[in-house]
């Protein structure tokens, strides 16, 4: 338990560093991936029962402080998205790759969309269509790609030590 929390914390630091070092430099046409969001959501899906609220909140707050948007917005959305994704996965998991991917994608799109809407509410000079076409959609796709890479890695790292179950054995909840 403590070991996995330590791993999650280290992963959060790495995600934050990737966000400030790599994300601005791999931007394509202004769209960049959100490593922090991808990490928060993948952890919520990989460890739905242990994914707490502290890491998403702190990671979101750190991202807020590094950016120029409203402080607290990403902290709010990360916390909410992490909670929602973990609960959705606990209910909907059907032991296929589709469900985590669907939950991850939906949560990413919702977070990006909500963040964009919040910025527009606070005075961002852009139309909803522009915001969706030029930021929400490309950033979400970029983040989903990052999530696809992160998911197997974190599956391996965070599920080490957990009892593995054989194929075909149902999950009892």
């Amino acid at each position: 338990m403590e070991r996995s929390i330590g791993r999650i914390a280290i992963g959060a630091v790495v995600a934050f560093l990737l966000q400030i070092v790599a994300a601005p430099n791999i931007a394509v046409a202004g769209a960049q991936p959100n490593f922090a969001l991808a990490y928060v959501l993948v952890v919520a899906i990989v460890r739905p029962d242990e994914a707490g609220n502290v890491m998403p909140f702190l990671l979101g707050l750190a991202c807020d402080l590094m950016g120029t948007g409203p402080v607290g917005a990403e902290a709010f959305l990360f916390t909410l998205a992490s909670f929602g994704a973990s609960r959705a996965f606990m209910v909907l998991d059907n032991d296929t790759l589709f469900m985590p991917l669907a939950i991850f994608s939906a949560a990413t799109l919702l977070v990006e969309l909500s963040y964009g809407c919040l910025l527009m509410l606070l005075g961002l000079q852009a139309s909803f269509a522009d915001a969706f076409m030029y930021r929400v959609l490309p950033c979400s796709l970029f983040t989903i790609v990052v999530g696809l890479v992160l998911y197997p890695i974190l599956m391996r790292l965070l599920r080490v030590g957990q009892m593995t179950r054989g194929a075909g054995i149902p999950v009892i909840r």
Partner: protein
Amino acid sequence: MALNFQQRGRSGASSGLLALFLAVSLILVIIYTREGDVGPLHRAQATMSGLLAPVQMAGAPVGAATAQMQDVVVDATVDEESLSALREQNRQLVAQYAQGEEDRLEAERLRGLLGLKDAYEMEGVAARIIGRSTQAWSQTVTVDAGSAEGVDAGQTVMGATGVVGQVIDVADHSATVRLLTDPNSGAAAMVQSSRAEGIVRGSLEGLLYLEDVAADKQVSLGDVVITSGLGGSYVKGLIIGTVAKIDMRQGDSLRRIVVAANDAPELLEEVFVVFTVGAEDAAAVSASTHRERVRQQQAAAQGDGQGSSDDAAASGEGSGGGSGDDADDGAESGGGDQGGSAGDAAGDQSGDTGAGSQGAEDGQSGDEGVSAGEGGDR
């Protein structure tokens, strides 16, 4: 039963924590939106950006590699027609290269003599860019000069050839600059030749727009756009870019103009934070600087014994407009390669947004002397 109770207890604590964090987040957002630009949360943001900006520099090689990859993808997907056009342009470019190299060397010497700073009699501080925005929603950079160096919020920031943005947050030894391409930016500006006024705004697609320009004012492709100084947020008379495209529907009383920025934000490495400009005589100084430059170019052209073709090329480098008008205005110093880089930027920007050919053509038509190859080479 006991286990169930324990789980229920944990779940309750977790829900409480969730509610607490959500409440704290919302309170932070409300405080942030209500506090001024110098509020504690804004200050915390500026300080964090300054502290972690050096870490961001570690990603520079990644950025270079990404840019190269994008070029490779673009190059690999061109069709045969584009390839032929590019070959033809390449042939022309090779022919122009020798002349261009001469012009470049001359421009460098002139820049050394009549640098932007001296031309405008600017007081300020040069700063290196040490970080870029970590969020896709904003176009900002962090520079390594802050309040200790005299930088203050609201000051204009210049690139090598024109205005690039404005300081929005300041820490002790760093400052955050909102680029003109940020959707939240806004600079009162005007078209140099016709004095048509409007507001230059950034956009999410990365283009600069000069909005609210009266339809009855004459505006042509290649016209120079400068800050008008209205509202006091930007210093008057500094060059922003050139007109790359004019959007107008019949019956509209206002036009929207696409401006090709003089400095491509993604290529910026150093900037100059302007404290003051010799405001009262800036226009006169710049006009005389411009006249002096034209005189030198003519003298050089005559000295080389090269006829009117060189003159045409030299005068085409500026704004693409008449030199008489340009000389009257102050924003034209350094125009030697401003025109060229503007055409370049037009191709650059519109290439990024999928409207490449139009932007490139616009860049070319605005400045035939220099940018014929620049738009096409993207």
